[in-house]
């Protein structure tokens, strides 16, 4: 009965072949997964600390009309146009969300829902209205397929083949994110921890807030056309949230996020091969399982440890 649902487990097929015969394909899928998880996870750490976890979700939907409008107005698919469209849509989303909840009785979570669903709907209307001119559909944005990465056009530099364009682009974005976090670590830290103090120190808190939102928009847009919104939304939360259960120091949680990104991508790829399922879906499930494991079994503050302690105390 169960064989109908779960394919047989064959060690050779699942673990050896992808890295021998299938190496040329799977290395790019793994790397793309890692870079997406890493870039999203690094930015996600700060998004979570600012209690804005759902804003990432909102922006990933709101980007649709930004990109669609950028296409329609410029009738080009160049990266610059996409990035400008995405950043504008991302920033507008956050500005609207804040403006609504600051000037009305609507709370932040409801404001997020209002703004992103409106933006997303406008995007869908634009795409269906101008479908003939726009080589883009809502499905591809939401459910982009990481498995197609090896077939993408290759990027080359000085005659050297660097790999599929989306992977190279995502690697670049990840490096830029790492660089920015390193350069502006103290500003990001203090504006996330204590806005009042940051202001009194002469740090432009708005600049860092919207700067972070702009970076978030760039990360999302460079990732989701190739891997889908589900992986992006998940990876904005999972690495940071899981790492925060393990360590209470921000530099360590940032490092752990990178390590977790490797695990999600690597285990996810193998799980997807075994179950013959969506790779992005498998990576998210792996992230969910790792989170559950840490949450339950973490030796310092895991749920099971805590339950043991309470039992000891009540005895």
């Amino acid at each position, binding site marked *: 009965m169960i064989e109908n649902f779960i394919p047989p487990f064959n060690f050779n097929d699942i673990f050896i072949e992808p890295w021998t015969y299938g190496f040329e394909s799977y290395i790019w899928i793994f790397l793309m997964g890692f870079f997406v998880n890493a870039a999203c996870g690094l930015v996600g750490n700060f998004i979570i600390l600012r209690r804005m976890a759902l804003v990432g979700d909102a922006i990933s939907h709101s980007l649709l009309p930004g990109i669609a409008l950028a296409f329609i107005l410029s009738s080009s698919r160049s990266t610059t146009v996409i990035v400008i469209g995405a950043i504008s849509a991302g920033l507008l989303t956050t500005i609207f969300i804040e403006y609504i909840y600051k000037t009305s009785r609507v709370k932040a979570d409801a404001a997020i829902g209002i703004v992103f669903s409106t933006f997303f709907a406008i995007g869908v209307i634009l795409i269906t209205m101008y479908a003939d001119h726009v080589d883009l559909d809502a499905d591809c944005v939401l459910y982009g397929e990481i498995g197609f990465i090896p077939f993408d056009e290759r990027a080359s530099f000085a005659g050297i083949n660097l790999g599929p364009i989306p992977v190279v682009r995502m690697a670049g974005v990840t490096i830029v994110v790492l660089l920015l976090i390193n350069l*502006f670590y*103290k500003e990001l*830290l203090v504006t996330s*921890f*204590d806005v*009042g*103090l940051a202001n*009194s120190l002469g740090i432009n808190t708005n600049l860092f807030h919207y700067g972070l939102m702009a970076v978030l928009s760039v990360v999302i847009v460079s990732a989701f056309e190739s891997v889908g919104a589900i992986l992006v939304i998940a990876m904005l939360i999972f690495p940071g949230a899981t790492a925060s259960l393990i360590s*209470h120091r921000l530099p360590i949680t940032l490092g752990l996020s990178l390590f977790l990104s490797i695990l999600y991508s690597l285990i996810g790829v193998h799980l997807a091969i075994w179950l013959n399922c969506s790779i992005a879906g498998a990576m998210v499930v792996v992230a969910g399982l790792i989170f559950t494991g840490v949450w339950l079994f973490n030796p310092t503050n895991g749920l099971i440890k805590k339950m043991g302690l309470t039992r000891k105390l009540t005895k």
Partner: protein
Amino acid sequence: MIDDYREAAPLEIHDLTVAYQKKPVLYGIDLEVPKGSLVGIVGPNGAGKSTLIKTIMGLVPIGSGWIKIFGKSFKKAITRVGYVPQRESVDWDFPVNVLDVVLMGRYGRLGLLKKPSKDDKDIAMACLEKVKMSPYANRQIANLSGGQQQRVFLARALAQESDLYFMDEPFAGVDAATETAIIEILQELKNRGKTLLVVHHDLPTAKQYFDRLLLLNMRLVAFGPTEEIFTMENLQKTYGGRLTILSDVAVERNLGVKVD
């Protein structure tokens, strides 16, 4: 004393009005705080005490009037101003340790792109030593008591090495030992010529702790040396009917105010 004449007052406020969505919170505040004073800002709930500090710090927009710090706008005098927000205003589960928080006090002097140096860390440690928290330098801030959290905030303010400090209820919810430690440090700062404005809730201790009082209830009721200001008439004006709940005898005993 020569300094007092040469330099503009640490804080000067002229005809300040602040409103939250058209509802006025502060009206026509006029104020000049002399250098080296330890000022207690006292008034009932909703009197605009925190709002006054936040407005000076540029966190709340000014309705009308102006504020000058050492004769300049807040933005230009920013490195001379230290701020201790209310303890509850931050998330104490944040993934930083005690030393990280105190180091934040140094950020204003570092400027963009520079990282805290060994010197900054030494200064931060010395500030922790002053509030008797140096053994906790590597402790995660979630594992601190309320009093310890307040000491860490105070150490951070010390690390800012400012000339003018604003503190929002530093005595709220702290133990007696911390309260004594805080007031000792405030006194020491004052003796070194720093100017401090402290939002305070507790009337009996206000008289004892501060050499000047600022009685606030949307309007500035009175400002000046504590002995002159701390009168029944002024307190009645500040607290309205709320103070009359106490019997005259209790007021006399608790506040040390002569009731006519």
